Protein backbone atom coordinates (compact mmCIF):
# COMPACT_ATOMS: atom_id res chain seq x y z
CA UNK A 1 0.00 0.00 0.00
CA UNK A 2 2.79 2.35 0.97
CA UNK A 3 4.56 1.52 -2.23
CA UNK A 4 1.49 2.24 -4.33
CA UNK A 5 1.01 5.59 -2.67
CA UNK A 6 4.65 6.43 -3.34
CA UNK A 7 4.24 5.56 -7.02
CA UNK A 8 1.12 7.71 -7.21
CA UNK A 9 2.71 10.76 -5.61
CA UNK A 10 5.89 10.48 -7.61
CA UNK A 11 3.94 10.12 -10.87
CA UNK A 12 1.80 13.16 -10.10
CA UNK A 13 4.30 15.56 -8.61
CA UNK A 14 7.93 14.48 -8.46
CA UNK A 15 8.38 12.90 -11.88
CA UNK A 16 5.63 14.84 -13.55
CA UNK A 17 5.37 13.47 -17.06
CA UNK A 18 5.17 16.79 -18.85
CA UNK A 19 7.37 18.98 -16.74
CA UNK A 20 10.22 16.69 -15.85
CA UNK A 21 10.09 13.84 -18.34
CA UNK A 22 9.01 15.84 -21.39
CA UNK A 23 6.38 13.32 -22.36
CA UNK A 24 3.24 14.75 -23.92
CA UNK A 25 4.66 18.18 -24.63
CA UNK A 26 2.72 18.63 -27.86
CA UNK A 27 -0.74 18.54 -26.26
CA UNK A 28 0.69 20.42 -23.28
CA UNK A 29 1.63 23.34 -25.51
CA UNK A 30 -1.31 22.92 -27.85
CA UNK A 31 -4.31 22.45 -25.63
CA UNK A 32 -3.37 24.49 -22.58
CA UNK A 33 -4.70 27.69 -24.08
CA UNK A 34 -8.13 27.35 -22.56
CA UNK A 35 -9.16 25.87 -19.26
CA UNK A 36 -12.09 23.90 -20.75
CA UNK A 37 -10.03 22.17 -23.38
CA UNK A 38 -7.24 21.53 -20.86
CA UNK A 39 -9.70 19.76 -18.57
CA UNK A 40 -11.30 17.80 -21.42
CA UNK A 41 -8.02 16.64 -22.85
CA UNK A 42 -6.53 15.61 -19.55
CA UNK A 43 -9.71 13.81 -18.51
CA UNK A 44 -9.46 11.73 -21.65
CA UNK A 45 -5.76 11.16 -21.07
CA UNK A 46 -6.23 9.88 -17.50
CA UNK A 47 -8.88 7.47 -18.75
CA UNK A 48 -6.84 6.12 -21.65
CA UNK A 49 -3.58 5.95 -19.69
CA UNK A 50 -5.17 3.83 -16.99
CA UNK A 51 -6.80 1.55 -19.56
CA UNK A 52 -3.66 1.29 -21.67
CA UNK A 53 -1.57 0.35 -18.65
CA UNK A 54 -4.11 -2.29 -17.72
CA UNK A 55 -4.26 -3.65 -21.28
CA UNK A 56 -0.56 -3.73 -22.15
CA UNK A 57 0.73 -5.27 -18.92
CA UNK A 58 -0.91 -8.69 -19.34
CA UNK A 59 0.01 -8.79 -23.00
CA UNK A 60 3.66 -8.13 -22.23
CA UNK A 61 3.76 -10.57 -19.30
CA UNK A 62 1.73 -13.46 -20.66
CA UNK A 63 2.28 -13.14 -24.39
CA UNK A 64 5.39 -11.28 -25.46
CA UNK A 65 7.83 -12.35 -22.74
CA UNK A 66 7.08 -16.12 -22.85
CA UNK A 67 7.26 -16.07 -26.65
CA UNK A 68 10.49 -14.04 -26.60
CA UNK A 69 8.88 -11.32 -28.69
CA UNK A 70 9.98 -8.47 -26.43
CA UNK A 71 11.34 -6.51 -29.35
CA UNK A 72 7.86 -6.30 -30.86
CA UNK A 73 6.71 -4.34 -27.81
CA UNK A 74 6.62 -0.94 -29.45
CA UNK A 75 4.56 -2.06 -32.43
CA UNK A 76 2.16 -4.10 -30.34
CA UNK A 77 1.66 -1.36 -27.76
CA UNK A 78 0.96 1.40 -30.24
CA UNK A 79 -1.57 -0.82 -31.99
CA UNK A 80 -3.22 -1.66 -28.68
CA UNK A 81 -3.41 2.02 -27.81
CA UNK A 82 -4.85 2.91 -31.20
CA UNK A 83 -7.43 0.13 -30.96
CA UNK A 84 -8.24 1.05 -27.38
CA UNK A 85 -8.82 4.67 -28.22
CA UNK A 86 -11.11 3.68 -31.07
CA UNK A 87 -13.00 1.26 -28.83
CA UNK A 88 -13.40 3.78 -26.03
CA UNK A 89 -14.69 6.33 -28.49
CA UNK A 90 -17.25 3.93 -29.94
CA UNK A 91 -18.48 2.73 -26.56
CA UNK A 92 -18.64 6.24 -25.18
CA UNK A 93 -20.59 7.45 -28.18
CA UNK A 94 -23.19 4.74 -27.66
CA UNK A 95 -23.60 4.69 -23.90
CA UNK A 96 -22.22 7.97 -22.55
CA UNK A 97 -23.08 10.55 -25.18
CA UNK A 98 -22.66 13.46 -22.76
CA UNK A 99 -19.13 12.46 -21.86
CA UNK A 100 -18.41 11.80 -25.51
CA UNK A 101 -19.46 15.30 -26.44
CA UNK A 102 -17.12 16.67 -23.78
CA UNK A 103 -14.10 14.52 -24.58
CA UNK A 104 -14.91 13.54 -28.15
CA UNK A 105 -12.52 15.65 -30.15
CA UNK A 106 -9.62 14.90 -27.82
CA UNK A 107 -9.85 11.14 -27.99
CA UNK A 108 -8.37 10.56 -31.47
CA UNK A 109 -5.44 12.83 -30.60
CA UNK A 110 -4.45 10.62 -27.70
CA UNK A 111 -3.15 7.89 -29.99
CA UNK A 112 -0.23 10.11 -30.93
CA UNK A 113 0.29 11.43 -27.43
CA UNK A 114 3.70 10.14 -26.51
CA UNK A 115 2.82 10.19 -22.81
CA UNK A 116 0.46 7.24 -23.30
CA UNK A 117 2.93 5.04 -25.15
CA UNK A 118 5.59 6.32 -22.76
CA UNK A 119 3.76 5.23 -19.65
CA UNK A 120 3.16 1.72 -20.98
CA UNK A 121 6.82 1.35 -21.93
CA UNK A 122 7.97 2.73 -18.58
CA UNK A 123 5.70 0.30 -16.73
CA UNK A 124 7.49 -2.58 -18.40
CA UNK A 125 10.91 -1.02 -17.94
CA UNK A 126 10.36 -0.45 -14.21
CA UNK A 127 9.04 -4.03 -13.84
CA UNK A 128 5.91 -2.96 -12.04
CA UNK A 129 3.26 -5.45 -11.00
CA UNK A 130 -0.19 -5.17 -12.56
CA UNK A 131 -1.62 -2.95 -9.80
CA UNK A 132 1.45 -0.77 -9.69
CA UNK A 133 1.32 -0.37 -13.47
CA UNK A 134 -2.31 0.74 -13.42
CA UNK A 135 -1.67 3.13 -10.52
CA UNK A 136 1.33 4.55 -12.35
CA UNK A 137 -0.79 5.02 -15.47
CA UNK A 138 -3.55 6.85 -13.62
CA UNK A 139 -1.03 8.86 -11.59
CA UNK A 140 0.79 9.95 -14.72
CA UNK A 141 -2.55 10.99 -16.18
CA UNK A 142 -3.40 13.04 -13.10
CA UNK A 143 0.06 14.60 -13.27
CA UNK A 144 -0.65 15.53 -16.86
CA UNK A 145 -3.89 17.15 -15.76
CA UNK A 146 -2.19 19.10 -12.95
CA UNK A 147 0.44 20.42 -15.33
CA UNK A 148 -2.09 21.30 -18.02
CA UNK A 149 -4.52 23.06 -15.72
CA UNK A 150 -1.82 25.01 -13.89
CA UNK A 151 -0.31 26.04 -17.17
CA UNK A 152 -3.63 27.11 -18.63
CA UNK A 153 -3.79 29.59 -15.75
CA UNK A 154 -0.27 30.82 -16.44
CA UNK A 155 -1.09 31.33 -20.11
CA UNK A 156 -4.14 33.39 -19.27
CA UNK A 157 -1.89 35.77 -17.35
CA UNK A 158 0.56 35.85 -20.26
CA UNK A 159 -2.12 37.09 -22.62
CA UNK A 160 -2.30 40.45 -20.93
CA UNK A 161 1.46 40.99 -20.94
CA UNK A 162 3.47 43.17 -23.25
CA UNK A 163 5.84 40.70 -24.86
CA UNK A 164 8.74 41.51 -27.23
CA UNK A 165 7.74 40.74 -30.81
CA UNK A 166 10.11 37.84 -31.38
CA UNK A 167 8.97 36.17 -28.18
CA UNK A 168 5.26 36.40 -28.92
CA UNK A 169 3.37 33.16 -29.17
CA UNK A 170 5.18 29.93 -28.52
CA UNK A 171 8.60 31.20 -27.40
CA UNK A 172 7.23 33.01 -24.35
CA UNK A 173 5.01 30.02 -23.65
CA UNK A 174 8.07 27.81 -23.52
CA UNK A 175 9.88 30.21 -21.21
CA UNK A 176 6.84 30.22 -18.94
CA UNK A 177 6.80 26.42 -19.06
CA UNK A 178 10.40 26.51 -17.96
CA UNK A 179 9.42 28.48 -14.85
CA UNK A 180 6.53 26.15 -14.04
CA UNK A 181 8.86 23.20 -14.45
CA UNK A 182 11.39 24.92 -12.18
CA UNK A 183 8.79 25.16 -9.46
CA UNK A 184 7.96 21.47 -9.84
CA UNK A 185 11.59 20.67 -9.12
CA UNK A 186 10.78 21.69 -5.57
CA UNK A 187 8.96 18.39 -5.18
CA UNK A 188 12.15 16.41 -5.64
CA UNK A 189 12.69 13.95 -2.82
CA UNK A 190 9.10 14.24 -1.64
CA UNK A 191 8.15 10.66 -2.44
CA UNK A 192 11.15 9.02 -0.76
CA UNK A 193 10.85 11.01 2.44
CA UNK A 194 7.10 10.90 2.76
CA UNK A 195 6.97 8.08 5.30
CA UNK A 196 9.93 9.06 7.44
Amino acid at each position, binding site marked *: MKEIFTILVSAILVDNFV*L*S*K*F*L*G*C*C*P*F*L*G*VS*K*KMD*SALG*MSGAVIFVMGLASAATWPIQTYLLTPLKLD*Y*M*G*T*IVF*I*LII*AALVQLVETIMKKYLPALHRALG*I*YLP*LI*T*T*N*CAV*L*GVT*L*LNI*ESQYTFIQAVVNGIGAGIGFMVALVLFAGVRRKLESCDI*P*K*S*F*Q*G*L*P*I*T*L*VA*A*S*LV*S*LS*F*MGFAGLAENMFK
Partner: protein
Amino acid sequence: MKKQGKLQYLTNGLLKENPVLRLVLGTCPTLAVTTLAVNGIGMGLSATVVLICSNLVISLLRNFIPKQVRIPAYITIIAGFVTIVQLFIKAFFPDIDSALGIFLPLIVVNCIILGRAEMFASKHGPIESVLDGVGMGLGFTVVLFIMASIREIIGSGTWMGIVLTADAITPMGILKMAPGGFFVFGCLMALANWLSDRKRGKPAVSTAGCAGGCAGCAGCAQHAEGADAEAPQNDHPHVEKGEDK
Protein backbone atom coordinates in the same frame (compact mmCIF):
# COMPACT_ATOMS: atom_id res chain seq x y z
CA MET B 1 1.88 24.80 -53.80
CA LYS B 2 4.07 26.63 -56.25
CA LYS B 3 6.02 24.62 -58.73
CA GLN B 4 9.17 23.61 -56.99
CA GLY B 5 12.40 22.12 -58.24
CA LYS B 6 13.31 18.79 -56.78
CA LEU B 7 16.05 20.43 -54.76
CA GLN B 8 13.58 22.67 -53.06
CA TYR B 9 11.90 19.72 -51.39
CA LEU B 10 15.24 19.12 -49.77
CA THR B 11 15.92 22.64 -48.57
CA ASN B 12 12.34 23.18 -47.48
CA GLY B 13 12.82 21.16 -44.34
CA LEU B 14 16.14 22.72 -43.49
CA LEU B 15 15.06 26.34 -43.32
CA LYS B 16 11.68 27.48 -44.56
CA GLU B 17 9.65 24.77 -42.92
CA ASN B 18 12.04 23.59 -40.28
CA PRO B 19 10.04 20.93 -38.46
CA VAL B 20 11.03 22.01 -34.97
CA LEU B 21 11.30 25.78 -35.11
CA ARG B 22 8.77 26.52 -37.84
CA LEU B 23 6.18 23.76 -37.77
CA VAL B 24 6.65 23.07 -34.03
CA LEU B 25 6.48 19.31 -34.39
CA GLY B 26 8.32 16.78 -32.29
CA THR B 27 8.84 18.96 -29.28
CA CYS B 28 9.09 16.09 -26.79
CA PRO B 29 12.31 14.51 -28.07
CA THR B 30 13.70 17.96 -28.81
CA LEU B 31 13.40 18.90 -25.17
CA ALA B 32 14.24 15.57 -23.65
CA VAL B 33 17.35 14.27 -25.34
CA THR B 34 19.25 17.49 -25.94
CA THR B 35 21.38 17.41 -22.81
CA LEU B 36 24.48 16.27 -24.69
CA ALA B 37 25.41 17.12 -28.27
CA VAL B 38 26.08 13.47 -29.09
CA ASN B 39 22.57 12.50 -27.99
CA GLY B 40 21.12 15.23 -30.18
CA ILE B 41 22.88 13.82 -33.22
CA GLY B 42 21.91 10.26 -32.33
CA MET B 43 18.26 11.12 -31.92
CA GLY B 44 18.22 13.31 -35.03
CA LEU B 45 19.78 10.69 -37.25
CA SER B 46 17.58 7.87 -35.93
CA ALA B 47 14.50 9.94 -36.63
CA THR B 48 15.87 10.86 -40.06
CA VAL B 49 16.34 7.24 -41.04
CA VAL B 50 12.84 6.36 -39.88
CA LEU B 51 11.42 9.39 -41.65
CA ILE B 52 13.09 8.59 -44.97
CA CYS B 53 12.04 4.94 -44.90
CA SER B 54 8.49 5.59 -43.80
CA ASN B 55 8.06 8.42 -46.31
CA LEU B 56 9.26 6.13 -49.09
CA VAL B 57 7.04 3.19 -48.16
CA ILE B 58 3.98 5.32 -47.48
CA SER B 59 4.29 7.18 -50.75
CA LEU B 60 4.67 3.89 -52.61
CA LEU B 61 1.59 2.49 -50.89
CA ARG B 62 -0.43 5.67 -50.97
CA ASN B 63 -2.81 4.38 -53.61
CA PHE B 64 -3.38 1.07 -51.86
CA ILE B 65 -4.13 2.18 -48.32
CA PRO B 66 -7.84 2.89 -47.85
CA LYS B 67 -8.45 6.40 -46.60
CA GLN B 68 -10.38 5.37 -43.50
CA VAL B 69 -7.63 3.26 -41.99
CA ARG B 70 -4.69 5.31 -43.16
CA ILE B 71 -3.56 6.54 -39.75
CA PRO B 72 -3.30 3.07 -38.15
CA ALA B 73 -1.59 1.85 -41.32
CA TYR B 74 0.95 4.68 -41.19
CA ILE B 75 1.62 4.07 -37.52
CA THR B 76 2.24 0.39 -38.13
CA ILE B 77 4.71 1.14 -40.93
CA ILE B 78 6.48 3.72 -38.79
CA ALA B 79 6.59 1.40 -35.77
CA GLY B 80 8.17 -1.28 -37.92
CA PHE B 81 11.00 0.99 -38.99
CA VAL B 82 11.45 2.33 -35.47
CA THR B 83 11.92 -1.21 -34.20
CA ILE B 84 14.56 -1.85 -36.87
CA VAL B 85 16.43 1.33 -35.95
CA GLN B 86 16.10 0.55 -32.27
CA LEU B 87 17.60 -2.91 -32.65
CA PHE B 88 20.39 -1.50 -34.81
CA ILE B 89 21.31 1.15 -32.26
CA LYS B 90 21.10 -1.34 -29.39
CA ALA B 91 23.55 -3.56 -31.23
CA PHE B 92 26.09 -1.02 -32.40
CA PHE B 93 25.74 2.08 -30.18
CA PRO B 94 24.75 0.85 -26.72
CA ASP B 95 25.79 4.17 -25.12
CA ILE B 96 23.41 6.17 -27.25
CA ASP B 97 20.71 3.60 -26.63
CA SER B 98 20.94 4.00 -22.88
CA ALA B 99 21.14 7.80 -23.17
CA LEU B 100 18.06 8.07 -25.37
CA GLY B 101 16.24 5.42 -23.35
CA ILE B 102 12.52 5.49 -23.78
CA PHE B 103 12.65 8.23 -26.40
CA LEU B 104 14.02 5.84 -29.00
CA PRO B 105 10.83 3.73 -29.18
CA LEU B 106 8.86 6.93 -28.81
CA ILE B 107 9.97 8.01 -32.29
CA VAL B 108 6.82 6.08 -33.28
CA VAL B 109 4.64 8.86 -31.97
CA ASN B 110 6.97 11.67 -33.03
CA CYS B 111 4.61 14.06 -34.75
CA ILE B 112 7.19 14.99 -37.38
CA ILE B 113 7.07 11.53 -38.90
CA LEU B 114 3.32 11.02 -38.81
CA GLY B 115 2.86 14.66 -39.82
CA ARG B 116 5.03 14.32 -42.91
CA ALA B 117 3.37 11.03 -43.80
CA GLU B 118 -0.02 12.68 -43.68
CA MET B 119 0.91 16.06 -45.13
CA PHE B 120 3.48 15.07 -47.73
CA ALA B 121 4.16 11.41 -48.45
CA SER B 122 0.50 10.54 -48.94
CA LYS B 123 0.25 13.14 -51.70
CA HIS B 124 3.60 12.94 -53.50
CA GLY B 125 5.67 10.41 -55.39
CA PRO B 126 8.46 8.34 -53.85
CA ILE B 127 11.39 10.50 -54.99
CA GLU B 128 9.93 13.73 -53.68
CA SER B 129 8.97 11.99 -50.46
CA VAL B 130 12.46 10.69 -49.88
CA LEU B 131 13.91 14.14 -50.55
CA ASP B 132 11.40 15.66 -48.17
CA GLY B 133 12.32 13.05 -45.58
CA VAL B 134 16.02 13.84 -45.93
CA GLY B 135 15.40 17.58 -45.65
CA MET B 136 13.02 17.37 -42.73
CA GLY B 137 15.23 14.87 -40.95
CA LEU B 138 18.32 16.98 -41.37
CA GLY B 139 16.44 20.08 -40.27
CA PHE B 140 15.42 18.20 -37.14
CA THR B 141 18.97 16.96 -36.56
CA VAL B 142 20.52 20.41 -37.00
CA VAL B 143 18.16 22.01 -34.50
CA LEU B 144 18.69 19.19 -32.01
CA PHE B 145 22.43 19.52 -32.44
CA ILE B 146 22.45 23.30 -31.93
CA MET B 147 20.19 23.08 -28.92
CA ALA B 148 22.14 20.21 -27.39
CA SER B 149 25.40 22.10 -27.96
CA ILE B 150 24.09 25.17 -26.14
CA ARG B 151 22.84 23.08 -23.25
CA GLU B 152 25.99 21.01 -23.05
CA ILE B 153 28.41 23.95 -23.21
CA ILE B 154 26.59 26.04 -20.63
CA GLY B 155 25.15 23.19 -18.60
CA SER B 156 28.20 20.99 -18.20
CA GLY B 157 31.06 22.98 -19.70
CA THR B 158 31.86 20.36 -22.31
CA TRP B 159 31.10 19.87 -25.98
CA MET B 160 30.92 16.49 -27.67
CA GLY B 161 32.66 15.13 -24.59
CA ILE B 162 35.56 17.59 -24.84
CA VAL B 163 36.09 19.67 -21.71
CA LEU B 164 35.81 23.36 -22.58
CA THR B 165 35.04 25.62 -19.67
CA ALA B 166 34.18 23.13 -16.95
CA ASP B 167 37.46 23.71 -15.10
CA ALA B 168 37.41 27.49 -15.24
CA ILE B 169 33.73 28.29 -14.73
CA THR B 170 31.27 26.30 -12.65
CA PRO B 171 28.72 24.95 -15.17
CA MET B 172 25.11 26.00 -14.78
CA GLY B 173 23.61 22.60 -14.15
CA ILE B 174 20.05 23.87 -14.41
CA LEU B 175 20.37 23.99 -18.19
CA LYS B 176 20.77 20.25 -18.28
CA MET B 177 17.56 19.78 -16.34
CA ALA B 178 13.98 20.12 -17.47
CA PRO B 179 13.52 23.90 -16.99
CA GLY B 180 16.67 24.62 -18.99
CA GLY B 181 15.30 22.58 -21.88
CA PHE B 182 12.11 24.63 -22.09
CA PHE B 183 14.06 27.86 -21.72
CA VAL B 184 16.65 27.19 -24.42
CA PHE B 185 13.94 25.96 -26.80
CA GLY B 186 11.92 29.13 -26.22
CA CYS B 187 14.94 31.34 -26.85
CA LEU B 188 15.90 29.46 -30.02
CA MET B 189 12.38 29.81 -31.36
CA ALA B 190 12.41 33.51 -30.59
CA LEU B 191 15.72 33.79 -32.42
CA ALA B 192 14.25 32.02 -35.44
CA ASN B 193 11.29 34.42 -35.39
CA TRP B 194 13.61 37.40 -35.12
CA LEU B 195 15.79 36.23 -38.01
CA SER B 196 12.81 35.65 -40.28
CA ASP B 197 11.41 39.05 -39.30
CA ARG B 198 14.61 40.70 -40.46
CA LYS B 199 14.39 38.94 -43.80
CA ARG B 200 11.04 40.48 -44.48
CA GLY B 201 11.88 41.01 -48.16
CA LYS B 202 11.47 37.30 -48.66
CA PRO B 203 8.21 35.98 -47.30
CA ALA B 204 9.09 33.22 -44.90
CA VAL B 205 6.54 30.77 -46.22
CA SER B 206 4.67 30.76 -49.49
CA THR B 207 0.95 31.31 -49.12
CA ALA B 208 0.13 27.77 -50.10
CA GLY B 209 2.76 26.56 -47.70
CA CYS B 210 0.94 28.44 -44.97
CA ALA B 211 -1.94 26.06 -45.04
CA GLY B 212 0.42 23.17 -44.51
CA GLY B 213 2.40 25.20 -42.02
CA CYS B 214 -0.66 25.99 -39.97
CA ALA B 215 -1.75 22.39 -39.95
CA GLY B 216 1.75 21.60 -38.83
CA CYS B 217 1.93 24.33 -36.20
CA ALA B 218 -1.32 23.03 -34.95
CA GLY B 219 0.76 19.97 -34.40
CA CYS B 220 -0.60 16.83 -32.99
CA ALA B 221 -2.77 18.56 -30.50
CA GLN B 222 -4.06 21.85 -31.67
CA HIS B 223 -6.47 20.24 -34.07
CA ALA B 224 -8.61 20.06 -31.01
CA GLU B 225 -8.61 23.80 -30.72
CA GLY B 226 -9.03 24.15 -34.43
CA ALA B 227 -12.48 22.80 -33.78
CA ASP B 228 -13.14 25.98 -31.88
CA ALA B 229 -12.47 27.73 -35.18
CA GLU B 230 -10.41 30.37 -33.45
CA ALA B 231 -7.25 31.17 -35.32
CA PRO B 232 -4.38 31.58 -32.88
CA GLN B 233 -3.36 35.20 -33.22
CA ASN B 234 0.17 35.29 -32.01
CA ASP B 235 1.26 31.75 -32.53
CA HIS B 236 2.29 32.05 -36.12
CA PRO B 237 3.58 35.48 -36.96
CA HIS B 238 5.11 34.20 -40.19
CA VAL B 239 1.71 33.24 -41.48
CA GLU B 240 0.37 36.74 -41.23
CA LYS B 241 3.46 38.09 -42.89
CA GLY B 242 3.09 35.70 -45.77
CA GLU B 243 -0.37 37.01 -46.40
CA ASP B 244 0.74 40.63 -46.30
CA LYS B 245 2.79 40.19 -49.42
